[in-house]
């Protein structure tokens, strides 16, 4: 690069799907570049952010992040290269235009970016690497979509390509739904194909990897608490995984390393997986920093953006002491030296790719190699919604992202971390009233488990007919409450009268049930009753109940100190993993 000036593209206005996380990454990239001796300048047009603080970088251009506005800046500043990886979809979408204008894209090439985002090319790549993915295809017409649906079988996931945050994304259970929804997906990003995929109902997990094209380092695996079908931005996630087996984790790392190498990733990449029947499928690859980078950086102690920026600028991970594999934190006090900002801040070790390979293929037992048996800390991310401000918005969770923000709960036990994430995101019991359960047929077994936990802790329960009966059959006492269509007083009245302390309501099966459910959820929002719409979230709540009962069992420490000393752990609750 003949110039030492680098332009970092910002992420524009805060919107659902592209929040403050991207600003965090942009700012850290600027600081990393400065540490390397580059002149780092920034372009962004969001007045709320740190990135547009005029003393963040070596120059701030308060301009829209579009090609027309960027090109004159490049000319004026004699910019050597542009960073497109940290500004979310806003920035990454400009890679192609910039590259064709002859601008140097730093890090992962524009071609690789297009590769990851172009469905056909990406499918070919996965095939070549032998990485499974849900069957499906990018299509350009409804008839094509119907054909694919017939091949892979319903339900199918339908979504537009090149869109962040799952906009206009829907799970279609039959022909009618597919027909109704296809047009929407098509118009969400005109001119681009629509993706139709087999919908796998399994566990989801994701990773953010750092790669220099050769070495691929994975700071951590995040397991989603809600099953597939809930957008990753709206699901709770736990680090490290609590239910994934070492072999599955090793498989995830294996696939990640393969993908990073194949795409010649230089910088960050986010990969989403679904696990069904002990098989790992790749759902999606984002060749850029994702919204999980800030919190994962904090809880793993790995300076992810700094390292990614180094990779982007041509340095190798090996030179900084990192090798391919997974970071495994261990208890103990880290030696953090501010003069060496690239070193991990947590005490730990790298579980090398070769070891992982042996575990993956069953050649050796995992033991504690992956550190998921008794990790020094758990971190649970929980989404936060703004439904109170938006009337007529349906608050149930689905493939389309709806949350506006997130909180993190960190603790030495999984229960306490869950508790903090739930409380932080506003899911608490109101001091009076009963826990009201109204769940669909397939969720009933899980609901019984949850109800049992709640009852054991002394919570009074109420339920609508079906759920009530299921509970009664399981020997759990609950008050019967009428559904809206069954007359009055019904559960809506109970909510408004302050008789509900928490609502567990999973999506209904038919239109009428859904309409009722929507009114119920709305009523909860208006009256400040926490409303859980996924049975998996409810199960997490049940798991955290002991801490709800005894909050002092949760710790309260500067986050850098979690998992540092065993003395800290000794005084706190010990972890039990489901």
């Amino acid at each position: 690069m003949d110039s030492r000036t680098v332009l970092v593209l910002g992420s524009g206005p805060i919107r659902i799907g592209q929040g403050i996380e991207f600003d965090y990454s942009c700012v850290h990239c600027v600081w990393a570049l400065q540490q390397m001796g580059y002149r780092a300048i920034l372009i962004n047009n969001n007045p709320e952010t740190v990135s547009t603080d005029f003393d963040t970088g070596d120059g701030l251009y308060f301009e829209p992040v579009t090609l027309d506005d960027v090109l004159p800046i490049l000319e004026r500043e004699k910019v050597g290269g542009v960073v497109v990886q940290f500004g979310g979809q806003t920035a990454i979408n400009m890679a192609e235009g910039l590259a064709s204008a002859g601008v140097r894209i730093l890090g992962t090439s524009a071609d690789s970016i297009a590769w990851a985002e172009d469905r056909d090319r990406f499918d070919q790549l996965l095939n070549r690497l032998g990485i499974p993915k849900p069957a499906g295809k990018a299509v350009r017409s409804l008839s094509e979509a119907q054909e694919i649906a017939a091949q892979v079988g319903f339900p199918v996931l339908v979504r537009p390509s090149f869109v962040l945050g799952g906009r206009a994304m829907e799970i279609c259970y039959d022909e009618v739904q597919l027909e109704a929804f296809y047009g929407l997906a098509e118009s969400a990003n005109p001119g681009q194909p629509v993706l139709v995929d087999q919908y796998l109902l399994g566990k989801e997990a994701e990773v953010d990897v750092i790669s220099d094209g050769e070495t691929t380092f994975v700071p951590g695996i995040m397991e989603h608490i809600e099953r597939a079908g809930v957008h990753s931005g709206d699901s709770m996630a736990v680090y490290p995984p609590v239910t994934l087996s070492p072999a599955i984790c090793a498989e995830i790392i294996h696939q990640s390393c393969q993908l990073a190498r194949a795409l010649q990733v230089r910088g960050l990449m986010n990969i989403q997986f679904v696990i069904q029947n002990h098989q790992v499928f790749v759902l999606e690859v984002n060749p850029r920093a994702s919204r999980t980078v800030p919190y994962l950086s904090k809880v793993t102690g790995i300076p992810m953006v700094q390292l990614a920026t180094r990779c982007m600028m041509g340095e190798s991970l090996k030179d900084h002491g990192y090798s391919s594999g997974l970071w495994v934190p261990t208890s103990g006090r880290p030696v953090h030296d501010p003069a060496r900002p690239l070193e991990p801040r947590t005490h730990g070790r790298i579980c090398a790719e070769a070891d992982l390979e042996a575990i993956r293929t069953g050649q050796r037992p995992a033991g504690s190699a992956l550190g998921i048996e008794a990790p020094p800390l758990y971190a649970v991310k929980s989404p936060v919604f703004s439904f109170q401000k938006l009337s007529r918005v349906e608050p149930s969770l689905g493939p389309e992202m709806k949350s506006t923000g997130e909180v993190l709960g960190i603790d030495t036990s999984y229960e306490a971390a869950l508790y903090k994430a739930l409380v932080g995101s506003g899911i608490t019991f109101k001091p009076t009233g009963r826990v009201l359960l109204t769940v669909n047929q397939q969720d009933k077994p899980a609901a019984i488990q949850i109800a049992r936990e709640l009852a054991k802790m002394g919570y009074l329960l109420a339920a609508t007919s079906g759920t009530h009966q299921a509970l009664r059959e399981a020997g759990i006492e609950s008050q019967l409450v009428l559904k809206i269509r069954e007359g009055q007083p019904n559960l809506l009245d109970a909510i408004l009268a302050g008789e509900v302390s928490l609502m567990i309501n999973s999506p209904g099966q038919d239109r009428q049930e859904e309409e009722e459910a929507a009114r119920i959820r709305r009523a909860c929002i208006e009256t400040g009753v926490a409303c859980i719409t996924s049975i998996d979230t409810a199960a997490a709540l049940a798991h955290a109940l002991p801490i709800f009962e005894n909050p002092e069992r949760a710790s309260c420490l500067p986050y850098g100190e979690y998992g540092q000393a065993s003395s800290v752990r000794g005084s706190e609750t010990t972890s039990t993993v489901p």
Partner: protein
Amino acid sequence: MKRILVIGSGPIVIGQAAEFDYAGTQACKSLREEGYEVVLINSNPATIMTDEETADAVYIEPLTPEFCERVIAREKVDALLPTLGGQTGLNLASLLADRGILDKYGVQLLGTPLSAIRKAEDREEFRALMREIKEPVPESWIVESNDDLKALLDHAPYPCIVRPAYTLGGTGGGIANSPEELWEIGQRGLKLSMRSQLMIERSLLGWKEVEYEVMRDRAGNCITICNMENFDPMGVHTGDSIVVAPSQTLSDFEYHMLRTASLKIIRALGIEGGCNVQLAVNPDSFDYYVIEVNPRVSRSSALASKATGYPIARVSAKIAVGRTLDEIENQVTKTTKACFEPALDYCVVKIPRWPFDKFTTGDRTLFTQMKATGEVMAIDRSFESALLKAIRGLEVQSKDLRHPKFSAQSEEELKTSVRQPTDERLWAIAEALRRRWPIAEISRLCRVDKWFLVKMQNLIEAEQALGQPDHEGTEQNVARALQLGFTPSQIRALAPESPRLEAALSNRSSRPVHKMVDTCAGEFESKTPYYYATLGRDSDDVLIELNEGEGASQAVIQTQIELGVSSEAR
């Protein structure tokens, strides 16, 4: 005093976005510059403020009084700065004070005293204070029965707004233009309200909404950082309004009348730090009302900071620990003091970013409940170009003032779209202008000031001129469009292809220069590289070269005729 606790604002929700990461990060930096140790609590991990480098101890814990107390106890905190974490931070500090936790641990509250905050936030206390200092507040009444309502019919100011309290989705309210209407709407509202309670308030719909970002230190020095005029008149939450800085349609007298009122209010409240004052201004007289005071750093203050280059949160933090404005350096010029009022030599436009591209079934009407998740700001030296920039940066379907939804509407439908504030009304107004509806008629429907509408009309005229088949006027049309802020891509999208078009676009004068936001309109040299693009004579980093000698010769004139800002005259 040594250790200060800063409370963050928690997760991003509508009404509380990234501005508090910016404010909190600045405040922590500012306090540490002053030699204090900072302890931070925030549950939002996706923030710079929760980086371990930002504070001396960072807690990512739920923002509850219980966890705060544990942090206070563990860190032996001496003082608490509550005004930088939005409403969340303020409410939490308030709870800690009420529960005696602050007293228990001997924690001192910094910045604006809690009593002043309550005075600003409690409706009745605030009104009483305003009456005392003779600042007008809109009359309002609480009505709890039909008898109350009846008693009000004769002396309520019409039109008035009727708002039933505690209804689902804020339904059942309305605007009453006469006693008959008030009776009808009021009765219905009483039934709808779960607590049988109505608030009735003088309607200021259609008045101008103007905001002042002001600041006061302990010594009583008061300054205005920025004033802003809302494009949308009263009735739309300021977070959902298109906002322009500085105000455009206020005369010097009006500007300073409102500025004086704002400063009087923060003096009376005893604010120490930044504060936002919202005023409703009658577009046809000197009448105004004080609508609301935000006694803390807010979304508006982040906007004002970026719009002026004045770091409000940073200075507020220093004021909170007792520094006075005349002691604090102006961080942008580095040669002058923080005690001054920024002079803008550009125009700033903010447009909110709403989530209705995702929530397609959501209610798009804008009222007093904020719905935007974020916002964009644009800086340029004309309103037209700043507006276009802002639209371009929104990342919505429309990249300019065209919108297929409204071009397809009938006249009647469009009338409704222009009248009803929604996230898309800007484009509805543009369509009305495109159809050559008279400005007066559009203004009557939407109550947006004529000044803004005329500027939008300039853009529509340029857009329509570009749409004509190529002719000898093409170059002039392109020059005009560039001047108004259309970019080459936008122009290519509007105009038919032609060599003349390309020639005009490749003209050197079509390329923007970059100017500085320097807080002082060029009066003092500034070293902070904070830029915006505009069409102009030179960029700010270019050294100005002077010609030697007195008087210019003919030859000098020939070689020195430069393009002014506008090449339209050619």
